[in-house]
């Protein structure tokens, strides 16, 4: 079943003007990207800085609108929804960010942050129990709900961010460089956690990363972006074993995977 369909999506930004007489140049951050993600599967979006992968993530999360193309979740065009209708479907798709220090409000307890998606939709029945359950699902203790972000390590914070993302039982999680800031041994723990949760909850993952070794370890399919253009797309094993595009090859070489 197709959960997420990105159809011919293009996003352009106007750069700051360089002369007072002419408007600033236009940067095409994402150029005609298309892919589908099946329920319960993992798609990796690989690219370096400036590849447009984060822009793509923000568009999938409906933080930004594409200039062209459509993004459908469960067949529904996200940008055709009204603001309140969009908020009503938000529990279906959540996001985990890169920076475990920036993604939690320093002034709110872990439990408060995890419960936010429940309060947002007025779905507050048994909220406390569901927060506790989410904490345990990510390998923390229910009592950790009372603590503030600074009391946790980077890896634990990322677990809290994941707990917030799964508390509404979403069908899709966008992981935007979710393990990139973590130490290798912590990264392995979080990757395993994501795989476990995916198996237990039937989550689909849109896994965005610059690190090809991480992507191929967790993803079913891979899409490689270079300067907003899709240069390669296919099953992870195939892309790894027989990359066709020179850019993909250079990434594999740089990561020490060839």
């Amino acid at each position, binding site marked *: 079943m197709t959960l997420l369909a990105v159809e011919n999506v293009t996003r352009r930004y106007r750069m700051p003007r360089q002369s007072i007489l002419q408007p600033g140049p236009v940067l095409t951050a994402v150029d005609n990207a298309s892919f589908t993600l099946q329920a319960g599967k993992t798609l990796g979006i690989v690219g370096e800085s400036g590849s447009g992968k984060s822009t793509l993530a923000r568009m999938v999360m409906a933080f930004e609108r594409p200039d062209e193309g459509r993004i459908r979740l469960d067949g529904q065009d996200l940008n055709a929804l009204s603001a309140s209708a969009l908020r009503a479907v938000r529990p279906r798709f959540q996001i985990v960010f890169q920076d475990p220090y920036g993604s939690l409000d320093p002034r709110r307890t872990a439990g408060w942050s995890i419960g936010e998606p429940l309060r947002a939709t007025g779905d507050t029945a048994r909220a406390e129990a569901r927060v506790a359950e989410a904490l345990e699902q990510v390998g923390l203790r229910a009592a950790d709900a009372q603590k503030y972000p600074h009391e946790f390590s980077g890896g634990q914070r990322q677990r809290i961010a994941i707990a917030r993302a799964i508390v509404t039982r979403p069908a899709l999680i966008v992981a935007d460089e979710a393990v990139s800031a973590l130490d*290798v*041994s912590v*990264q*392995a723990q979080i990757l*395993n956690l994501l795989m476990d949760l995916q198996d237990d909850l039937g989550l689909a993952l849109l896994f965005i990363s610059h690190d090809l*070794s991480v992507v191929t*370890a967790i993803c079913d399919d891979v899409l490689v972006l270079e300067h907003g253009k899709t240069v390669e797309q296919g099953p992870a094993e195939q892309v790894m074993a027989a990359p066709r595009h020179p850019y993909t090859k250079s990434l594999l070489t740089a*990561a020490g995977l060839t």
Partner: protein
Amino acid sequence: MIDVSNLSVNFGPAQAVRDASLTIAPGARIGIVGESGSGKSMLGLALMGMSPDAAQVTGSLTVDGTQMAGASERDWRRLRARRIAMIFQEPMAALNPLRRVGDTVAEPLRVHEGLGREAALDRALALFKEVGLPDPAARLRQFPHEISGGQRQRVLIALALACNPGLLIADEPTTALDANVALRITELLTDLSVKRQMALMFISHDLTAVARATTEIMVMYGGTVVERGPTAEVLNAPRHPYTKGLLAARPRPEGLRQSGTRRRLPTIPGTVPPLDKLPPGCRFAGRCPVELPQCATERPPVVANAACHLLAQGGAA
């Protein structure tokens, strides 16, 4: 060139580095690997005499035969740039945004070597060529925001090379860069070390980069050196249980899928304790899969370059 023995960096009761010893010969390329809190950056700063004010540094540290432990800031300043230079993770943060990069690189030449502006800029141009900056003459007049992250790191390498140091300490030099750029910076550092017979201390959590740049390696955990040796040997046949765990935890695509399901990565259980809560014996005690009763309380002996009770008893981790 540099001889360090039993160097410790303490913050009150917390030990960021405990009894580190190493020797850096001219032209040596040494990698220091470890995760956050391993003390690898603190060790690098101590070699520059740049430990934080709150730190107490003990042990012996000689540079060119001169004892620098407890040396004054003035003595250190005489060594910095000219004998030991350092580059950091964030090239943007290390450059003055209001100065042309050519002037930034020319400054130490004018200050330390008394060159005039023209002569210093000529030398800066030569350095820019040496570090492989494209169109070096035009780069001299550019500001940091006008060049890419990789080029900024090259500018900082040029700045570090300006006074021909005998040792370049590179603290996570590739971490903020894209993979392809990181690879080229790693290659550049290696080439410069070989061509100039300049020692290189490559501090990084990136094992791939360290494997490329260095011939010797030190693995740190909780402020201690747990294993050392030739880079290829340590990375291909690790002996210490921490090194083994760290290498195994790296996501490697091969063998991750078996019969259609994804294999989980081997992990090191738990998290690194805060510096003041590390076990007094082996720092890895409490997380180690092959722990012995004495590990938490007794410091492990160093046998054949690995600090481990089990290995010392002839066991294999």
